[in-house]
């Protein structure tokens, strides 16, 4: 059981990276529908950077840069060229999927056995990890999890207690108000999308070099979309995103657990693999109150 909960936290980490990124960007009115592509590009760049340099740090930095570039492309098309956010995102996701498998082959050919790196090690925190029950669950994780422990409350504080947060939230509710207050709406939106790209890149790299130690083209398998779903199930609020992430992390942990014990007599294994996706659908349709930013998905047009 402890193992399962520890897994929940671990598998929840990248989801929360993605969901927080999505929350911040969507609060300005930008649905980052390219999140799946950002994850995948992050996973790819993380692996390539990590494998070629032999350093996971370089891997994560490459992932951040890759996420930034994909997000930059998405932001430029949607914010400055005013194109439709869903259409653009889907197109970019398809583009990235093709690009990643192509570039992987260009660089590595078609290896007989999959190339691997040794993934992020868990770092038990002295003293804290020895607390019974909670210790091994919360404090025997990788560095990414510890970072997210800070990022989650930090993003909440930023959104609700700082002028930057007020600007971000206002931009998604009524961009004219932001404009009239002398702040450039497009810049605000673009910067948050870039931030989402960096965070999404890290999240993607978690799957390749933080956990599996290898890259496959279907490594993300819709988890970007799950982060996307967590954002709105969590009511565009970092707190809600944390709760949503725990639910999905748990579902994923169960799926991995059932896979590992291989007890497919009772339940087909596929059911558990499908669990997070089924949960997305069920939670989405059972949600009642929405706190959706009023101008979510609407480009800001202003002639001058």
């Amino acid at each position: 059981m402890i193992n399962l909960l520890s897994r929940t936290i671990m598998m929840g980490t990248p989801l929360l990276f993605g969901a927080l990124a999505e929350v911040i960007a969507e609060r300005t009115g930008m649905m980052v529908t390219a999140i799946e592509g950002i994850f995948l590009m992050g996973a790819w760049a993380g692996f390539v950077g990590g494998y070629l340099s032999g350093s996971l740090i370089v891997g994560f930095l490459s992932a951040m840069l890759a996420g930034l570039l994909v997000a930059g492309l998405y932001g430029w098309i949607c914010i400055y060229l005013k194109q439709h956010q869903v259409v653009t995102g889907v197109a970019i996701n398809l583009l990235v999927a093709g690009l990643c498998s192509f570039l992987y082959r260009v660089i590595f050919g078609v290896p007989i056995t999959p190339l691997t790196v040794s993934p992020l090690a868990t770092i038990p925190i002295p003293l804290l990890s020895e607390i019974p029950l909670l210790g091994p669950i919360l404090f025997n994780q990788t560095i990414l999890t510890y970072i997210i422990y800070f990022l989650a409350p930090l993003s909440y504080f930023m959104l609700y207690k700082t002028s930057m947060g007020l600007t971000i939230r206002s931009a998604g509710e009524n961009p004219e108000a932001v404009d009239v207050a002398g702040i450039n709406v497009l810049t605000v939106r673009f910067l948050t999308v870039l931030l989402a790209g960096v965070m999404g890149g890290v999240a993607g790299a978690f799957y390749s070099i933080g956990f599996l130690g290898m890259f496959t083209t279907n490594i993300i398998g819709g988890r970007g979309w799950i982060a996307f779903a967590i954002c709105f199930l969590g009511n565009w609020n970092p707190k809600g995103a944390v709760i949503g992430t725990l639910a999905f992390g748990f579902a994923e942990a169960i799926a991995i657990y059932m896979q590992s014990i291989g007890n497919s007599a009772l339940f087909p294994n596929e059911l558990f693999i499908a669990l997070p996706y089924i949960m997305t659908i069920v939670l989405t349709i059972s949600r009642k109150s929405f706190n959706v930013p009023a101008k979510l998905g609407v480009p800001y047009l202003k002639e001058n």
Partner: protein
Amino acid sequence: MATAFFELRGISKYFAKVIANQDVSFSIQRGEVLALLGENGAGKSTIMKILYGLYKADEGKLLKDGREIKIDSPKEAMELGISMIQQHFSLVPAHTVTDNIILGNVHGIIDHKLFREEIKRLAELYGFELNPDDFIRDLAVGVQQKVEILKALYQKTNLLIMDEPTAVLTPQEAENLMGFVRDFTAQGNSVIFITHKLKEVMSVADRIIVMRAGRVFGDIKRAETNELELSKLMIGRDLNWVTKEDRQESIDQEVRLEIQQVTLQEKTGVPALKDISLTLHKGEILGIAGVSGNGQQELCEIVCGAILPTKGKILLDGEDITERKIRARIDLGIGYVPADRSSDGMIMDMSIAENMLLKSSYAKKWQKRGFIDKQKLNQYTWQEIQDYSIKAPSPETIARGLSGGNQQKVVLAREVDNGEKVIVFDQPTRGLDLGAVNHVHQVILQERAKGKSVLLVSTELAEIFALSDRIAILYKGEIQGVFNSAELTTEKIGLLMAGFREREVKSDAG
């Protein structure tokens, strides 16, 4: 003469092919109330947005205290002491009063308590009743405007620009606003007051700039002019105004439409309409007065069938039509000119002819072997274009390309034909220039003369008074009273619009 506080010199501004401002020059002194008067589309908002840094001028320059300045963003305007309250408020409905006021004026971590106190003090100083913790979405428009003003005061404004500030206010609220303007300028500050209402100009302005078609046509001291001269400058010609004499003496007593104790419950639980009973006779114009957002749109939609009432009945010529849907009601002869023509009245990217067909596309008369009878439709549309003098080269012209007035005429032409018995007009002249307003008024009177019944919703009291045979006042979804229009004065109707009951109004007056 002292150097002007601010001066605009030879400003021109083009939007693609539209000339919004051409060679506009005027100045404003310290302590002065300057009125910017002009019809819709005259370029008033544009010239002020240039001064506020929202738009960039294509030609011309700006001066402060005689020195040339550049204003490239609202931030820079604010630093120079300029604030502008937009025609459509730019507040965030989901945020509190405090959050709205400090947006763009704070840095780093927000000390909410400090700001709340500061705003409370400022509000008290100016005698505004405001709770800094209220959410904007819960406030009446009049109060929202106070938030906008407070926001400007918070930024230590010396020049306050207000774009059509009284459009959303009751006459009493407007009077309070004028009071504020006088106090504020008495302290040495300046106000630019954009409006198209002559009365306001005469009551508050020191000097008047009249604009027409993007240019300045007059720069006159209030004491040296009158309403007649101003209206001629503003319109550029004389108009044949609908006056009280056009009212008919006797109303047909035959009942056409009856609304019986209709209540409409919103999802949130508060009724949008509460126990409404109205009778509309043949050949009668019933005006519905009220500040916008008090249930007018719901009332119109109940009549045309877009929404069904929670309780109550609607009768047309004695027949119960409460359960009939929109399509059935169109067939019964109820026409509806909605307030927002661009979203509810027409499809902008379709042609005039297609828009004509919009509400009767299924009708046999437009069909030929299952296809649309293009020829017949175009013929019909062309006739309407002539009859309503719509400025369009052909029935195939796309609606988006027409001016607001001509778009409204398209909707009008269609609905007048649909409404064989009853026509509902919701704010039929909003945003139109005076020529088009006049045309719409003439059409309404013509239809009444044909014996049709008209429900006229408007927030412009002048319009209500000029056209209506009887007037009902709507406040928070309730009818405050129904009057023959001769019985009402502006003052009385203002009190009713503000929520006072008939009894109270009478005892107040007595």
